[in-house]
């Protein structure tokens, strides 16, 4: 082996080592968060946590049934608004990506994506809460929907544009119209990625506290009314974590753990659901 070969191999090893170190460094925060949430939260997770209301001040025990339902409800509401709007807007952006209006929409979406979540909370407060003079789950869902919208729009656009032109041409060559080609070939081809993007957007907003503080507020009681204030895991965790009670701290960790678990389960479910579509892409 000549010196040049030796140097090449040595350099390669060093670079692989550095890459692995970088990956590890990036994984450390994730691992630590999961570890802490699990270690601190698992002790307070029991059946009652999922089925009971928060205990009155001074009493030990209770659960977060209302907050779990609240978080799911409001993320669901947000998705109901943002998924159809976002996907359709994304289709528009990819189909007419050269037009001036598309540039304006794209720029707006990117700007909206950069707006701090607390500002979105205040904005929804101004248009949904102030006029009716009470907080509501509807307003909370709307705030989460506004958070999701730009992410879903841009993910949809990017993934649709990644679909090879050859697939469109294949559809056109068989007598498909532009919209037929979009909905029967291009969109299904991009669907696994779009679904992953939607799940990521949902997961990210499920962990938002700020937009809910001014919109759905919180609720110590079981409430399914969309027109009333609603509890959410994040606001409940925030309230408990900043209180002086030891028992509430434990509950806050448990709440955080449940939140992480919901996000994880949703992501896995989405992956599972798109497996058949993925298989059509890779062939095995």
């Amino acid at each position, binding site marked *: 082996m000549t010196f040049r070969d030796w140097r090449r191999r040595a350099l390669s090893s060093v670079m692989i080592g550095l890459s692995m170190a970088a990956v590890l460094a990036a994984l450390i925060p994730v691992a630590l968060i999961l570890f802490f949430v699990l270690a601190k939260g698992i002790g307070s997770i029991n059946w009652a946590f999922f089925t009971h209301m928060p205990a009155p001040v001074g009493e030990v025990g209770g659960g977060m049934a209302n907050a779990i339902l609240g978080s799911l409800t409001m993320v669901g509401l947000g998705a109901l608004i943002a998924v159809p709007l976002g996907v359709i807007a994304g289709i528009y952006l990819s189909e007419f990506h*050269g037009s001036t209006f598309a540039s304006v929409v794209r720029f707006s979406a990117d700007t909206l994506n950069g707006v701090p979540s607390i500002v979105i909370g205040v904005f929804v407060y101004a248009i949904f809460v102030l006029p009716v003079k009470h907080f509501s789950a509807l307003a909370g869902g709307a705030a989460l929907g506004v958070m999701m919208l730009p992410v879903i729009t841009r993910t949809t656009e990017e993934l649709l544009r990644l679909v*090879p032109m*050859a*697939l*469109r*041409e*294949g*559809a*056109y*060559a*068989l*007598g*498909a*119209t532009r919209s*037929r080609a979009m909905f*029967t*070939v291009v969109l*299904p*081809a991009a669907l696994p990625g779009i679904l992953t993007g939607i799940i990521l957007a949902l997961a990210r907003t499920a962990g938002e506290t700020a937009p809910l503080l001014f919109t759905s507020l919180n609720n110590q009681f079981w409430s399914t009314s969309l027109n009333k204030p609603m509890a959410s895991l994040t606001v409940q965790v925030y309230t408990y974590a900043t209180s002086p009670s030891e028992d509430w701290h434990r509950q806050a960790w448990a709440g955080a753990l449940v939140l992480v678990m919901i996000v994880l389960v949703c992501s896995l479910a989405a992956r599972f659901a798109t497996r058949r*579509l993925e*298989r*059509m*892409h*890779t*062939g*095995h």
Partner: protein
Amino acid sequence: MKITVEHLNFYYGAKKALTDISIEMKANEVTAFIGPSGCGKSTFLRTLNRMNDIIPGARVEGSVKIDGADLYASGTDAVLLRRKVGMVFQKSNPFPKSIFENVAYGLRINGMAKGRELAEQVEASLKAAALWEEVKDRLHDPAMALSGGQQQRLCIARALAVRPEVLLMDEPASALDPIATQRIEELIYVLKKDYTIVIVTHNMQQAARVSDATAFFWMGKLIEFGPTPSMFTGPREKLTEDYITGRFG
């Protein structure tokens, strides 16, 4: 004459890609387009089913007639036209769906068949493309699981399913190994009984083997067109002779 082209000019924006093409292609014959890369043969092929319509800035002058009807007349519906003029692309482009769904696609979107009739027509199309025996037991597997040659025959089956009259093939075997290529060529020979076939190829031996008539393109112009045997044995033009003897291109 199945296809009659008169004084066709084609532009990509300001760039002229085809100049004054006039040519006639007979029904149930295979016409091959040959010429060096960038000579306009693929562009010309794509004017025959208005596939260039989707390219921004593309513009056509002159007339292209199939059975006497002008493709570029204002009343012509490009979507209906493409059902009549099928196309197979250089790189096989099966949809990310099952083998069955790929062939059924055109039948479904055009409302041509459903249920058992659909299944029968899918089978007939796969048989016509000489693929049935290889896939009959795994129709619901992903099309992407097929080999390159099988994928290309699947694309042929998909094109045949909507019962076109003309089949355009844009270098259908250029990405395939010699055995897969031979199967495609044999298929072309069988298919010409029922279809008018136009094939672009940069492989001159292939043009000589499969075609009845050959057109030689150079720099966006049709240099020479005639029956394949005479094109290869006694070309009239010096350029044609230089190209087929491998002096350039």
